[in-house]
């Protein structure tokens, strides 16, 4: 897919949610599928709440992972968001 609008606000689709914090692994749960989340993927998904724009998510994580190449952080985030979109785990509002 083409890059999402940087001002769009990704939001998890109905029926897609995080598991309980109390469980041993953080997972993204959706119909007949579960994705393990760790570090960066968890940071991204936690911000897919319809409140954070794509631009903000990238800026947040570039700051958080300040030692990483910011362009790589951006392209990794865009890739991950695109994959989640294709799996229908999120929509770009």
């Amino acid at each position, binding site marked *: *897919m083409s890059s999402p609008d940087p001002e769009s606000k990704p939001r998890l*689709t*109905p*029926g*897609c*949610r995080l*598991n*309980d914090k*109390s*469980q*041993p692994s953080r*997972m993204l*749960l*959706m*119909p*007949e599928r*579960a994705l393990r989340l760790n570090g960066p993927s968890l940071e991204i998904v936690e911000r897919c709440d319809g409140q954070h724009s794509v631009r903000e998510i990238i800026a947040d994580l570039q700051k958080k992972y300040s030692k990483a190449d910011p362009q790589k952080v951006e392209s990794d985030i865009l890739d991950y968001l695109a994959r989640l*979109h*294709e*799996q*229908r785990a999120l929509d770009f509002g």
Partner: protein
Amino acid sequence: MTETPNPLALVAELTHRCPLHCVYCSNPLNLAKRESELDTTAWARLLREAAALGALQVDFTGGEPLARPDLLDLVGAAREAGLYASLITSGLPLDEKRLDDLVAAGLDHLQLSFQGATTQSGQAFSGTTTHAQKLSVARWVRQRRIGFTLNFVIHRENLNELPEMIRLAEDLQPQRVEFAHVQYYGWALQNRARLLPTRDQLEESLRTIDEAKERLRGRIRVEYVVADYYGRFPKACMGGWGRKVLLIKPNGDVLPCHAADVLPGMKFENAAESSLRKIWYESDAFQKYRGDEWMREPCRTCDHRAQDFGGCRCQAFLLANDLTDADPVCSLSRHRPLVDEILAAVTAASQPSRSAPADWLYRQNPK
């Protein structure tokens, strides 16, 4: 042998009662009587136990899970246990109020079956006129914020409707649509001679579904369950015996899949008599076909065994009476000619000159 993984999903086969009579149903012929069903308290405990084992999701299924008057309590118990709750349903009996209550109680996802793209085809394969109700349910689910999947079971006599099914899916706008070729267990096995597609039909269906998958990318997740009789290698049944899924029957028997009680010489533990943890990790039944130890050639040294685990044990028994051999659908199985014969009969039966097909065996209700 590598460590046994924990189960990821619980399939809660709540009842064998069902308002439909689908000719492709994979429930066993000897349906569980109502009086043998586990009660609410028992199921609530099992949901907690499954979650404690590491299960992430529960599929409420059957028969028809909506036939359980206590389904609301069971969904609530699933939420309490921290499980993602899916309802695998025909869509009745259900109205908006009951749906709202289920959503409020913690239902995450509803998978709705369609037996055809129209009232007529729905009636032909389910023995009921329930198509209109299903369309209503689809509309209601779209108005609530839960996951929504459409499931179409496809076979020789409704594959001609595949384009219409796809259009129906686009109208109803689920997140996900599953096109599932019939799997031959239970009632489906009895009706197999009429259900198996021809090779041409199968190949056309693959093209149609692939095209829809591409076109709907980013809008609807299109998934496909293979017609394994036509494959070169078997399906990775249940993701492997006792690797990912725990299934509990209406009476509490714990199985690695819905059909395993056809296997001779197996004793399945009942959840009323033992903990799920013990059953999963230690019972003879669950240990029996885990790992590679039980395999003979060709599976034992086959590169594919890590992907398909030797295929389906139930199918090895049902088709070839040979529990430890490769699934007979495998091109490397010594029993593959059996499957080829079955497919040759399909080709013959589908010729226009043939006489009328045998009557359907419509699924009955438990007595």
